């Protein structure tokens, strides 16, 4: 069996707020194999971004805190690591790109200085080597006139260009895993197509594994090999991209797919999931989706179903598909 690059086991990340302790990530299990593109989908507040920030231990603390679970990077648990050791990992074997490239680039430094910092820190290159490397990276991500752009500041670039710079920066040390948190959400569709193409090339040509966090089911269908659907801090379904779109099991996944208007078919009326996302608390009982679920049963309100394997690669957290439970009943 292949060893996953990353495997997350029973991760719990909580935030301390005025309303008490909020379990933003509430027992998440995930893995990513080398060269794989894993999509993590869900709506606002489902915990997908906090999961990704937890991997690099970038959750602001306080108020956030990883309270339980393991994050194994090539077999090594990074949860107990000190900040100093985490810094060696960030930007080197694992790097990350964010939704808003304006706020995640430093406005006081030129594009080149920011890319060079990574290689000088991790690879100990000289200033001259680092600069050549940075120009090469900018060229690779499709930035025209890289020799000139390298001395420009982030505000001089457009949104699409800034996202390319972010990508250049994040891949400058050839990471094995790239975490992309809504990388194209702030961009126009034609620019989104360019950036997705670039991420796909990285994955196919360099074998970089990608964890793609998004709310856009179109982007998932297009880019990912495997998909995890999150709801209220938990993974509710996980499977190959084909399983998720062609044979979705969990009522939430089915509702989500049916809610999306599509260009290739005409629907008289869109399906809509009634109600709103629950307010997270540590006192929640039962299935988190039960209050909005069209197929809710008595059991769902009382007890939380486990993520159980349905087929080779397809798992689902729902009492409807819990065979052992059926036997017991």
């Amino acid at each position, binding site marked *: 069996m292949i060893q996953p690059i990353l495997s997350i086991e029973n991760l719990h990340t909580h935030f301390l707020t005025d309303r008490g302790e909020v379990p933003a990530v509430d027992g998440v299990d995930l893995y990513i194999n080398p060269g794989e593109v894993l999509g993590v989908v869900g709506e606002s507040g489902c915990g997908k971004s906090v999961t990704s920030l937890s991997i690099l231990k970038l959750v602001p603390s306080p108020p956030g805190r990883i309270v339980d679970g393991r994050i194994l990077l090539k077999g090594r648990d990074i949860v107990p690591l000190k900040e100093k050791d985490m810094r060696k990992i960030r930007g080197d074997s694992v790097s990350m790109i964010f939704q808003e490239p304006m706020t995640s680039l430093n406005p006081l430094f030129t594009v080149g200085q920011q890319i060079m910092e990574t290689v000088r820190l991790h690879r100990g290159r000289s200033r001259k080597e680092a600069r050549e490397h940075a120009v090469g990276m900018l060229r690779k991500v499709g930035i025209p006139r890289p020799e000139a752009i390298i001395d420009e500041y982030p505000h001089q670039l457009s949104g699409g260009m800034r996202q390319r710079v972010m990508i250049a920066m994040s891949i400058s040390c050839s990471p094995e895993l790239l975490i992309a948190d809504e990388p194209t959400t702030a961009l126009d569709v*034609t620019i989104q197509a360019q950036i997705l193409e670039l991420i796909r090339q990285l994955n196919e040509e360099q074998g970089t594994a990608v964890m793609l966090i998004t709310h856009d089911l*179109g982007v998932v269908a297009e880019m990912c090999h495997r998909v995890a659907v999150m709801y209220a801090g938990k993974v509710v379904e996980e499977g190959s991209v084909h399983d998720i779109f*062609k044979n979705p099991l969990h009522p939430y996944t089915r*509702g989500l797919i049916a809610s*999306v208007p599509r*260009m290739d078919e*005409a629907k008289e009326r869109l399906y809509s*999931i009634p109600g*709103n996302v629950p307010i997270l608390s540590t006192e929640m009982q039962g299935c988190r989706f039960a209050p909005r679920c069209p197929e809710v049963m008595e059991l769902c309100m009382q007890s939380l179903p486990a993520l159980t394997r349905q087929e080779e690669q397809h798992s689902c957290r729902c009492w409807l598909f819990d065979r052992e439970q059926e036997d017991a009943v």
Partner: protein
Amino acid sequence: MSESLLEVKGLRKYYPLNKGFFSRERGSVKAVDDISFAVSKGETFGLVGESGCGKSTTGRALLRLIEPTAGEIWFEGQELTKLSAEDMRRQRREMQIVFQDPFSSLDPRYTVQRILEEPMIVHATCDARQRKAEVERLADVVGLSRAHLQRYPHQFSGGQRQRIGIARALALHPKLIIADEPVSALDVSIQSQVINLMQDLQREFGLTYIFIAHDLSVVKHICDRVAVMYLGRIVEITDKHKLYARPQHPYTQALLSAVPEPDPDIRKERIILQGEVPSPANAPVGCAFNTRCPRVMEQCRVIRPPLMETESGHFTACHLYDGEANTPLA
């Protein structure tokens, strides 16, 4: 086609560009550059395009929330750009707007009750008792409970806030609602609730919508006819079936091909456009799209193509369709 509710002719909005402190005007940003279209009663007319194409400016200029630089806006036989400020204010009873961001378009100091009453107070349409009944009716119509009325905007989720924004727009029984990206800030499951609500309201009250959006799948679902904008100009207008099945303008073709579809079996032939949208302060001579067009020709860099009817009900501004038979749009 039924009669037009709104007709726009040669609408322009230029922002002057000044250089230095005392210096004169040096050129202008052409946010909206000579666009014309008509919207029929009861239809949903889509305005789509990427950021900076002028779709929101157009929406606001129609209500004169932004003063147009030139052009005519005919609404039920009346020319709006000639109206005095006071007459225009009265005219807005018939034309309302719903904004994208339900977080910044509701006054945080007012209760929902007060927010929904406000338009009726401003236009003095009814007394206090009628207003109370009217507010309750509006709440029912958009699916808010009576208990919600005494709460403040920050106590609501994004989807509920958008319901409040829609209820407020309906308060004066308008004929036309301009919806500027009404569902873009919402999550997928909430987005479909709001889209369904808008369609129900349209049926119930015979509303006409101008639906401004960048999400082409949503536009296809809700609109009857669609205008595609690029750099302040309309490049194509037709009914949605023609537009999505047989887009003519190379920009529309690229735009449609760029939309990721939620189906892993669909492998689209993608037209990836090179480069980015030029600045509207420095739009290219000729066709605005000529710097990125995969089918650019010599004349595209010289002559701006007019919007022409290339087949029945299908208007495109592109030199590829400059046949003899085509007649320019009046």
